[in-house]
């Protein structure tokens, strides 16, 4: 009995030693030749496998590796909660000699400001916030432009005066802007349609996202749109035989033709440029807010379910936005109560858009919880 036990323990010990030769080699390869490389770290709120928000950030990271090749080394950490824990993770990368750190969610802003002050020689890039420092920039995109275009598609896909469900994360300006732009698009082609909003108070929670979509579907909405990190709301709509509008990535690829179109992100070009600037020493702090014109926000390919007529309409509107002859929040824009917020002939300033805290006419829901 005792002998058997000794053998068992010996095997447990020897097995790892015998097997890890393969693993060790890989580790060695990753570590070698790293001295000269520009090291970039990404902090993710969810998983690259969410097929949405983090997936697209990670596509951008991969593009850095593809385009800058040997000059850079990138890594990422996933599932980092917003709040005090984030500052530990960001600080650890700064300490380990990473040259540039991307924090890819709004709630990392204050922790990043805190760490950026401690490491003046490290470049910090924060997505979707509003605080910057000499060594901390912020980057984001005018997603509202693509949202508006997707609203046109959605408004055409439902009957006159029917309602759309919108699964939304937090009542912060970024999300509010998206809801409003989408609704403006919907009502342009379907003037009596409404958009019902449900807040999940989370960016990434597949279960909650699905539950919110199901609740909306139960209330009789005919189409699902969303501002979340995963494809769950799209799947919930598809299971009911209904169509949806995606977000973040080309969700039609992952879910199916029921996703009519998706406003999506394309970070790679911006990432490559800002990393290259840092390598060259020409990096300066900035607040990047690119739009359809710059390609950082895009509209995905259409599902076969979308008619040529709708595609042509979207194409015409997209052209106007890209050439600058019109934009989504140009007056007249009416608030939920019907009062004019942006007068006819005036344009909403970037600053007002970045702090948007009202809902437009046609949205059912409120900013309070």
């Amino acid at each position, binding site marked *: 009995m005792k002998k058997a036990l000794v053998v068992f323990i010996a095997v447990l010990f020897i097995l790892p030693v015998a*097997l*890890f030769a393969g693993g060790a080699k890989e*580790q060695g390869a990753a570590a070698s030749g790293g001295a000269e490389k520009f090291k970039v770290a990404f902090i993710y709120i969810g998983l690259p496998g969410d097929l949405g928000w983090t997936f697209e950030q990670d596509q951008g990271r991969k593009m850095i590796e593809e385009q800058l090749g040997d000059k850079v080394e990138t890594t990422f950490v*996933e599932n980092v909660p917003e709040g*005090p824990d984030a500052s530990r*993770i960001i600080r650890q990368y700064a300490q*380990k000699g990473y040259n540039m750190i991307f924090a890819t969610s709004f709630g990392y802003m204050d922790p990043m400001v805190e760490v950026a002050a401690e490491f003046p020689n490290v470049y910090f890039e924060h997505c979707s916030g509003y605080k910057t420092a000499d060594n901390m920039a912020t980057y984001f995109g005018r997603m509202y432009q693509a949202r508006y275009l997707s609203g046109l598609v959605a408004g055409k896909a439902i009957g006159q005066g029917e309602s759309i469900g919108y699964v939304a994360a937090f009542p*912060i300006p970024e999300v509010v802007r998206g809801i409003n732009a989408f609704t403006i698009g919907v009502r342009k082609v379907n003037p009596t349609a409404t958009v019902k909003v449900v807040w999940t108070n989370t960016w990434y929670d597949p279960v909650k996202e699905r539950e919110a979509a199901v609740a909306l579907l139960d209330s009789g909405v005919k189409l699902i749109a969303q501002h979340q990190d995963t494809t769950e709301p799209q799947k919930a709509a598809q299971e009911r035989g209904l169509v949806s509008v995606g977000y973040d990535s080309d969700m039609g690829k992952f879910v199916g033709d029921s996703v009519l179109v998706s406003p999506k992100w394309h970070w790679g070009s911006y990432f490559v440029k800002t990393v290259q600037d840092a390598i060259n020493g020409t990096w300066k702090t900035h607040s990047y807010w690119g739009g359809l014109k710059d390609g950082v926000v895009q509209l995905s390919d259409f599902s076969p379910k979308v008619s040529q007529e709708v595609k042509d309409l979207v194409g015409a509107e997209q052209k106007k936005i890209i050439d600058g002859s019109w934009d989504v929040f140009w007056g007249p824009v009416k608030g939920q109560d019907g009062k004019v917020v942006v007068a006819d002939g005036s344009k909403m300033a970037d600053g007002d858009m970045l702090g948007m805290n009202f809902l437009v006419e046609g949205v059912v829901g409120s900013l309070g919880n």
Partner: protein
Amino acid sequence: MRLVFEKRNSVSKKAIILVPVVSFLVSLILTGILLIIFRTNPFVTYASMFVGAFGSWINFTETLVKAIPLMLTGIGVGLAFRLRFWNIGAEGQLVFGGVAATWVALFWSNFLPPFLVLPTAILMGIIAGALWAGIPAFLKVYLKVDETLVSLMLNYVAILTAQGLYYGAWIDPNGMGFPGTKLFPKAAWLPRFSGRAHVGLFIAILLGLVMWVVLNRTKWGFEVKMSGHNPRAARVMGVNIGKTIITAILVSGAFSGMAGAFEVTAISHRLQQGLAIGYGYTAIIVAWMAQLNPIASLFVAVLMAGLLVGGDQVQMMMGLPAAMGIVLQGMILFPMLAGSLFTDYRLKIITKSTKEEAV
């Protein structure tokens, strides 16, 4: 052939030391096998976990940041468990303590002299934690309601109450709609002594020592022990068990409430998401691993915190998925907890012909 557990008549000194060491080795081996499956060198991984948690002073301060709430909640939960009062509610008590401290920091600062803001905030956190723990205690003593369920359910009530506040009534008007209260005034910040490690550490250590003395050298401590170990004998000796339970659970909740007050005043400086991240549940593991001993809880809390902080490295440096960090933590704890079974019991293999003892 059959396997039976037989309670050991006496626990040998050797077993007390040997069992944890062997369990730790077993957990390293099991985890090592898993790491190899993921084509990662276990030795490098362990080394990077250790370095991440204890390798430098700065890393160690981050481990302490997590250890402080674990110490306090671990001591508090341990006290309740001595009475066989299954307080699963440390998480909610911690959150409620944080809410009460926030209330003081946000709304009393204008009325109180600055030097009183912080002590009042922490005191209110302690009281709130105690009261929150008091609910299951009173229900148990006077109405015989099961405390496990009540204390567990109250966690959700506390967490959702806190959310209701920082999403709604207490939301920072300049926070662009993002959930969270505004920053506390500086008068309500608990001082940090290095990195983010704060003076709560010294208070926690002091309270751990005090608790040990109280439990082992006072009448009340004796009554707690008696009431938990042998309630009938305690009653015969004239101990008022109900009163003992209520006082002990109020103290238990006070520890967690203080942990919550420290978290908001020293770490986040506001009430926001990220307060309820499981300290109150990890406290249960801390209390058991420390065998309900408050001084041992201090050390176990540092180890557990090291495991949590070191777990980050698995992702950051070894490039393993986030879930692996959590799996590793579980794989390391499991044999440790299973091991404690063997300190108190022996495994017997009974065959038809012979009766042979194993291990």
